[in-house]
Structures are given as C-alpha cells and as structure tokens.
C-alpha cells in the first residue's frame, strides 16, 4: 500500500477491482465503510462476482476475469477524451512530457523488439530520446507526437466503450457510469483510492493490470495524496516483510538484486546499477545503491568482506536466468533436476498450480524438509488418500522430514503489514511438545553444515565458514538481535562533513542516510534502518496519537522507509509546495522546510523552486506512464487474453496471449480449449477461511466444512445442476467432485456477442485438517505465471462442469 488502512477514510471514491476486501480483509474494509459514512465516499466495485464488497457498493459492474487492462485502458481513453485529468499534476509529476526514442513502436499486439523464438523483447528502444548531456528530451507543450502522453493517447485509442464492452462483457452503460465516477476525482482536492489484491496479480498479465490502474491514478493526481494511492491488500501476515527482506530467487534484502553471470566483477554489477539522473537536479535515490549493497555484505560476512575482495562479491551465487521461481522449480523437479526441497511454512501441494504436477515433482525428490506448525498436505504428499491424493508410497523414494514449529503466539518478532508497518509482537506461551522456532531449526541446519565443512571440506565452503554469526545465543538468535542486525550499525566512528562524530563505532544507525560504501557501516535491510536505533525498538511503539485524525498514527509501530506513512507524499502538494487539498494536507513547504503530519518523501529542506521531482526513486524524478524497460511485456499495458480463454483476442487475433510470458512446453500442452472446457473458472477465498490453515481450526471447519463451487442460475438450469447437488468440475489438468452452490451472484456476460459463464472455485480444502476432505482448487489451474513476477494464473482458466454422483455414502 502507498497509504495506510485508516487513510482509506479520506477517499471520495473507492474502487475495489481485483480484490474483495469485505470478505478477505474485513477489519481493514471497515475504513471503506467509514469513508462512506463520514466522507460521503462512493464505493465502486468491478468484479466477475457480486461479492459481499459489491453488496455494500454504491455501484457495481461485472467484468469477465482477465480483462481488467481492457477496462482500465478504456478508462484512460475516457479521461483523455473528456479531458478529465489533473493537468498540473500530470505535467509536473509524470513523464507525460518526455520524448520517447525513435524506434519504439507498437503494432498488431507487439511492441518493437520482439523475438518470437525466445518469447522476449529486445528493449533497447524502450527509452527516452536523450540530449548530449544524457538527459531525457522534453516538450512541455505536448506538441511533439513522440511525447509519452501522445503515444499513450494513441495506444489506448482502440479501447472504445464498444470494444471494452465486447472484451470485458461489461454493459456499456455500466462501464461508462464507472468511468464517470472515477473521473470525478480529477479535481485537485478529490481523491480516489484503488484497493486490489490477488484478483489482479494472479494473471499472466498481472503486473500490467496494476500498472494500468496506477496510470489512471496518475492522470487523476491521486498518488501521494490523502485518500488516494495504489493499495495492494496483501494476503498474508508477513508476505510484505518476506518480500522486503528479499526471500525471492533474484532479490537481496531491501529490493537490491542478485548478480547475474555476465556481471563477473563488482564493477560490472554496479555498472548496471548507476541510476544516473535522467533529468537535471533529480535525486534518483537509487544512486546510493552501492552504500546499501556494501553495508549488506558487511552484515553477511563482516571482516571477510573487504574492499580488496570486492566486499565478498563472489560469495553470492549468480543467476544465469532471470529467476528460479516456484513454477520453474517444479518444472525442474518433474525432470529430476532437483534433489532436495525445504518448505518453511509453505504448502505448495495446495498453493501451486496443477496439483498433479506438484505431486509428481515432489515424488522425484531425494529429500523433502517441511517446517510448519500444522500438518500440511505437502508433508504427506506420498500418502494415498484416494481421489484427494492418489499415490503409491512404495514407489516414492523421498525421505520426508516433518518438523514442528512455533506459531505466531509463541514467538517475538515483527511482521510488516500491508501499509508497510513493522509491528512488534510478543511471545504469549510456550509451543506444544517438542516444537521449535524456525530460527532454531535454521540455525541447527546451518551449524551442522558448517561443522561438516570444517571437518570434511567440500565445495566452496568460504561463504558458509565466514557467514557472520555473532549472536549471544548462537543456537537460537533472539528476535531483538536479528532486528538490530537488519537496522544496522556503525562499524567505525561515523562523521559528518565537518568531521563531527555522528555515531560511535558499534552504535545502531538512525537512518539509511548514514550508510557508507567504505565498509564502515552495516545493515541487513537498508529500508528497515531506523526501526531499531539507540533509542530502542521503534517497532514496539504503541502511541495511538493521530494528528488531525487523518489516519497516520506516526508513533504507532514503525513504517518503512524512514517511518513514512504515505509514499510519494511530496505529490500531495502542488509545484510551489501548497497542498492540493487544503482540508487534508500531508506535507507542505513553509518557506524554509517541508512540514506536516508525515515524514516527507523528499529532501526535508529542498526548495520547491529547485524543481526536484516527487518520485525520488525514479531517475527522471517523475512517475511513469511509459515504463521504459522496466517491464518484460511492454512499456504500456496491453490487453492479452488469459492463456486459457473462451474467445479470441479481439484487438489482435494473432497475438492472443501475453507474448512475453514464459510457458514450459509440457505446461502449454496441458492448456485446454473452449471447445472442451467452455466455461471460465476463477478461484478465491471465503471470509470464513484462510487458505489451507483454518481448516485445522474447528470453528472455521464448522463454518465452511465442505468443498464447493459457485455457479450461476442460468448455467445451472442449462446443465440440470441443483443447488447443493454434486458436480464434477474439470479442466485439462484434473477434476474435482464437489457440491454446487447455485447463485444469483454470478450472471452470464455477453463477450464478443456470446454468453460467457463464470464458475467460482473457493480454494480452501485439502486432505488434512478438521473440515471434510477436498481436492483443492489447484487441481484445475494452469501452470503459467505473470510474465514479470511468475505469479500463477489462478484467476482465469477454462473448465467444464457436469452434474455428478457424490462419493459413496455422501448426500
């Protein structure tokens, strides 16, 4: 989230699209209700299903799963055509005026530079025209046809209301009504917030779904302001934190990136991470990358990371492909290329697409280690549980370790919430029986490995032998010590420019501004610097004071970065530094510095006349309608059909799906067609359940005991399916037999002149726990990810459904 949960109350319009906050985030959703009651806000819901969020909306419009880019590109077209944009914001704070390099083009569904063999783009021309100083050329008058705004206008021109309606199945009048509501926030003192979740990410075009709405928000001047923003409602309690700390194949804590094969030296690595400003006077804050990286390596390897050995650069593994994500890992597994796998609080047999492939992959492992508080399906993949998990244990050679861990109530530490707050929590009780913390287990594995390398030697033992491990209790380092390690400390006295000592050696850092690239500082996650200082644990703060009651609570816990609660808040004020919305200012220029209720996302004393842009992480200082080379599938979003779709792509039939998606051949062979699987399937959560955990909790298992699908009345009648009757739902990859809930909440949509039915597949059942056994929604879903992030396409795929007999003895 760019903003906070409470800040939602400041919105004038709330659009929930790609999520269902009322059911998936109920206690956050109450701030939507607060906005409706106290701020007369309008709630708009665009969703394939009339969800409980829709049931309290001021306006609801249906949409076919997987067509959000078409819908929102149409919104961009509408805003430009009606000239309902916030002009001053767009001119000053976006790259609308910058001129795009000759050579960039878009034709028949493909951007320039496409290579059909590799399914990827040469992105050389996805750049600005540069002047002789290396700055992007600009035309503030927008006369140059190569200005970003003009190319964008041209790009979205195809998304007429008629085209949007034909692709999305949204009736034109409903679509236009949504456009009007969105456009009403183009006034400088009006704001719309976008609340979204996995309804947008779980698509082969997931990242671009989100980008399209971000572009809408920028046109309206809704980023950085109270009641505005792009608010990703994250689904798990610390999925934000695990991402921040870089537990992803290609990441280093704090959004640094792992080195690649071709970056053989540290200099090569830094060469592509210069972040030289693309416009005069811009901060381009990533220019400090070297300080973050060197400080990180000092945390990892301490004295073993020196200037002479390039800060132990070679101790980090290098990537030969963009990433070894989970879909790639299971592809390797089924081909026998992975021998061992550790699952720490993660249940891939339920959570990853094409369950039968996941089980096949796990069956080929030499060893599997599962660390979890609960009895997961993954740890029992080898068990024969009839149709729910058909298996022949005698033929499975995998050694499996099921290790009991503590749960949230039995440990200290921090979780990062959706609004980037690091909130400390305290241990309430001892874990059951012999359960141990993940920290204890990881330390136990590490110590044994290190001891084996000391005794036996072996492959490249250096990073293992030299890993910093200076914990008071090395067997189970405390949460406090690890939190301090992420914050970072001075390794030598740190002086300011005048030579005065800012920090003595050994002291905790106050802010990432103190980080150095000479090895005199260390920090395990630079964006967390400031969270655990000499003043103590800032994440454990519990001051509920909220200046002007605006939803900031700066003394409650601690937010990254720098305890900043609203990202891009410089953009809440106009070019001169006066708030766009005087009733709800965040920061403003008082003649000598920036003051307000939040930590400025800006230099605190930078005079507005200096022309420093508010998007300080970007090299041009502005936000980007044109994404340069940052996305693998295009600088502008484009509508591509889901990998399994009931219709051809109306915009460019020859480029049906995301051309830059990575699809493995055996996965592609498992895609079905609408001839065999005529209905659109989509998966989701129920409000009574959390993934595959709450089926272990008795109350939740009672509330929603049994696997079912949601099916509209029209299709149910057509198929002779009764409410509460048994059905067989199938895809090219597998089938489930479950109950049908015949509902008014899903209605057929007219897509390209054809009635299209959607079937809802809640995802919560498996073969362990206290609820009835189920197949799990991932028995149906295709193994393909978003082209940028490899998040699986769970939200749009093809299925068939037929009435069925229930299992023996079931009614």
């Amino acid at each position, binding site marked *: 989230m760019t903003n906070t949960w409470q800040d939602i109350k400041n919105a004038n319009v709330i659009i929930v699209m790609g999520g269902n906050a009322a059911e998936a985030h109920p206690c956050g959703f109450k701030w939507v209700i607060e906005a409706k009651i106290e701020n007369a806000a309008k709630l708009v819901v665009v969703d394939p299903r009339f969800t409980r969020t829709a049931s309290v909306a001021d306006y609801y419009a249906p949409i076919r799963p997987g067509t959000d880019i078409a819908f929102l590109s149409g919104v961009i077209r509408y805003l430009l055509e009606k000239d309902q944009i916030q002009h001053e914001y767009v001119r000053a704070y976006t790259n609308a005026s910058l001129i795009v390099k000759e050579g960039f083009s878009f034709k028949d569904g493909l951007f320039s530079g496409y290579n059909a063999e590799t399914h990827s783009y040469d992105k050389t021309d996805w750049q600005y025209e540069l002047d002789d100083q290396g700055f992007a050329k600009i035309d503030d008058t927008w006369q140059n046809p190569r200005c970003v705004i003009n190319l964008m206008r041209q790009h979205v021109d195809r998304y007429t209301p008629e085209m949007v309606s034909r692709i999305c199945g949204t009736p034109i009048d409903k679509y236009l009504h949504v456009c009007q509501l969105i456009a009403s926030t183009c006034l400088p003192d009006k704001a719309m917030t976008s609340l979204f979740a996995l309804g947008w990410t779980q698509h082969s075009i997931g990242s671009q779904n989100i980008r399209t709405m971000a572009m809408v928000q920028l046109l309206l001047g809704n980023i950085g302001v109270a009641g505005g923003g792009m608010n990703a409602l994250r689904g798990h*309690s610390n999925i934000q934190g695990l991402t921040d700390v870089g537990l992803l194949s290609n990441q280093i804590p704090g959004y640094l990136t792992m080195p690649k094969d071709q970056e053989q030296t540290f200099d090569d690595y830094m060469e592509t991470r210069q972040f030289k400003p693309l416009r005069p006077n811009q901060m381009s804050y990533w220019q400090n990358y070297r300080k973050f990286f060197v400080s990180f390596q000092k945390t990892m390897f301490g004295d073993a990371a020196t200037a002479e050995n390039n800060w132990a650069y070679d101790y980090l593994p290098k*990537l030969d492909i963009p990433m070894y994500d989970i879909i790639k890992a299971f592809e390797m597994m089924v081909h026998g290329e992975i021998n061992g796998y550790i699952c720490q609080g*993660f249940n891939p047999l339920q959570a990853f697409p094409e369950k039968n492939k996941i089980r096949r992959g796990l069956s080929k492992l030499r060893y599997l280690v599962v660390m979890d508080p609960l009895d997961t399906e993954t740890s029992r993949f080898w068990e024969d549980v009839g149709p729910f998990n058909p298996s022949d244990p005698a033929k499975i050679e995998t050694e499996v370790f099921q290790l009991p861990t503590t749960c949230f109530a039995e440990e200290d530490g921090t979780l990062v919430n959706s609004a980037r707050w690091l909130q400390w929590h305290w241990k309430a009780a001892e874990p059951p029986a012999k359960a141990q913390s993940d920290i204890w287990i990881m330390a136990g594995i590490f110590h044994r490995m290190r001891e084996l390398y000391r005794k036996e030697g072996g492959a490249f033992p250096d990073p293992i032998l030299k890993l910093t491990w200076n914990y008071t209790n090395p067997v189970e380092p405390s949460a406090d010590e690890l939190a301090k390690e992420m914050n970072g400390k001075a390794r030598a006295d740190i002086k300011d420019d005048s030579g005065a000592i800012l920090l003595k050696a050994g002291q905790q850092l106050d802010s990432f501004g103190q980080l150095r690239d000479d090895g005199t500082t260390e920090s395990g996650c630079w964006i967390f610097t400031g969270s655990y200082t000499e003043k103590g644990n800032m994440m454990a703060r519990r001051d509920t004071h909220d200046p002007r009651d605006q939803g900031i609570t700066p003394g409650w816990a601690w937010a990254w970065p720098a305890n900043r609660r609203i990202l891009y808040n410089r953009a809440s004020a106009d070019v001169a530094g006066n708030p766009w919305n005087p009733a709800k200012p965040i920061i403003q220029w008082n003649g000598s510095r920036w003051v307000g209720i939040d930590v400025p996302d800006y230099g605190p004393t930078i005079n507005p006349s200096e022309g420093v842009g508010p998007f300080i992480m970007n090299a041009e200082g502005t936000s980007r309608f044109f994404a340069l080379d940052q996305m693998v599938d295009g600088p502008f979003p484009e509508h591509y059909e889901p990998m399994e779709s009931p219709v051809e792509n109306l915009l460019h039939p020859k480029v049906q799906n995301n051309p830059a998606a990575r699809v493995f051949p055996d996965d592609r062979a498992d895609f079905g067609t609408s001839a065999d699987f005529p209905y659109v399937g989509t998966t989701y959560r129920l409000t009574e359940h959390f993934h595959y955990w709450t089926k272990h909790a008795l109350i939740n298992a009672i509330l929603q005991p049994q696997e079912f699908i949601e099916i509209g009345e029209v299709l149910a009648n057509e198929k002779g399916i009764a409410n509460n009757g048994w059905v067989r739902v199938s895809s090219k990859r597998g089938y489930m037999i479950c109950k049908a809930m015949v509902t008014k909440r899903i209605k057929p949509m007219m897509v390209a002149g054809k009635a299209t039915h959607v079937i809802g597949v809640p995802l919560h059942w498996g073969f362990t726990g206290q609820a009835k056994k189920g197949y799990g929604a991932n028995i149906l879903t295709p193994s393909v990810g978003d082209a940028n992030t490899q998040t699986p396409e769970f939200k749009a795929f093809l299925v068939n459904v037929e009435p069925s007999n229930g299992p023996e003895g079931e009614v």
Partner: protein
Amino acid sequence: MTLTRRGFIKLSGATLASSSLSAMGFGGCGAALAESVRPFKLAAAKETRNTCTYCSVACGILIYASGDGAKNAHSNIMHIEGDPDHPVNRGTLCPKGSALLDVVHSPGRLQVPKYRAPGSNEFKEVTWDFALDRIARLMKDDRDKNFIAKNEKGETVNRWLTSGMLAASASSNETALLTWKVARAFGMLVFDNQARV
C-alpha cells in the same frame, strides 16, 4: 475513581471474588451474587500483545495465557481477542481472527519431529538430532556433488541449483533474515516465498 476498561474487568473480577461491589457503586446487593460467581479468569491471566497471523490488515490482538512466565510454569493460551487500542482494527476481528484460539490448539498442530523413510507408508517419530543430522548430511552431499563453481564459459557463478527452499508468509522478519543468510551462504538460487502466489 478513574477506571480503564481493562482495569474495570480486573477490579470487577477481584471484587466479585472478595464479595463487595460497593467500591464501584453497586451497593451491598452484590454480595450474594458474588458468592455464586467464579472469579473472572482473564483477570489473573497474563496479557500479551500480538498480531493476527492471517491477512495483512495485521489486526492487533490480546492473548491471555495462564502461567506467570516462570521457567517451570506451564503456560496455556486460553483466550484471544482484538486489541481495542490498535489504530486499524480497534478491537474488532473477522471470522478467522476470532477463531485464532482454535488454530493455536488445533489437533493438527505438529508436536514432534517425524521422518518418513523411502518407500514407507508412515511417519515415525524421531529426535531433533536425528532429523537435523540427517538433513545436513543430505544437503551437504547434494551440494558437494552438484555445486556449480564455474559455468560453461568458465565464469565464477558459485551456485547450488539441485536443492531449493520455499520460505513462509507468516514468519517474522527476523526469521526471514536468518533464513536468507543461511540459504544464500549455501549458494541457493531456487529460493522463493509465498509472495509469488
């Protein structure tokens, strides 16, 4: 007399037990009632501030446990409710958060390390030492056999691709840092967390 909500509960629990509510203005009529009412259990429980383990609204919760934290005292969580001071949830919890106690005490909670041998159709209880020694042995053998120090071009790459790891979605940042350090020191690249879903 100034009373917070918690103080009220504690005081009423205590005074009910000691047979007088007069301090709170209930007069003498409470005595008979108090004779028949058990002390309010939460008044004697240890209160701990924590965060709901499910979605990322991250509702503040209060956990009530018996036991005073002494080394040999048996602690047992007996109640969980929303934290009324928390600026986001302000005391409320959803159908999942309201049932947190049931997941803490779920019969599905794992109790002891278990091991399933190749070809076996059952788990057997093992000691932690057995499990961790065996895991380290398997990992080291696999790493030593398959570690790639140089790629085909002779470039230094120092990666281990034949073992991988999935990290969690509800573990703490502190667990995350330690896990990162260990996995990368081994040279792992097949390394992800649940954010990918």
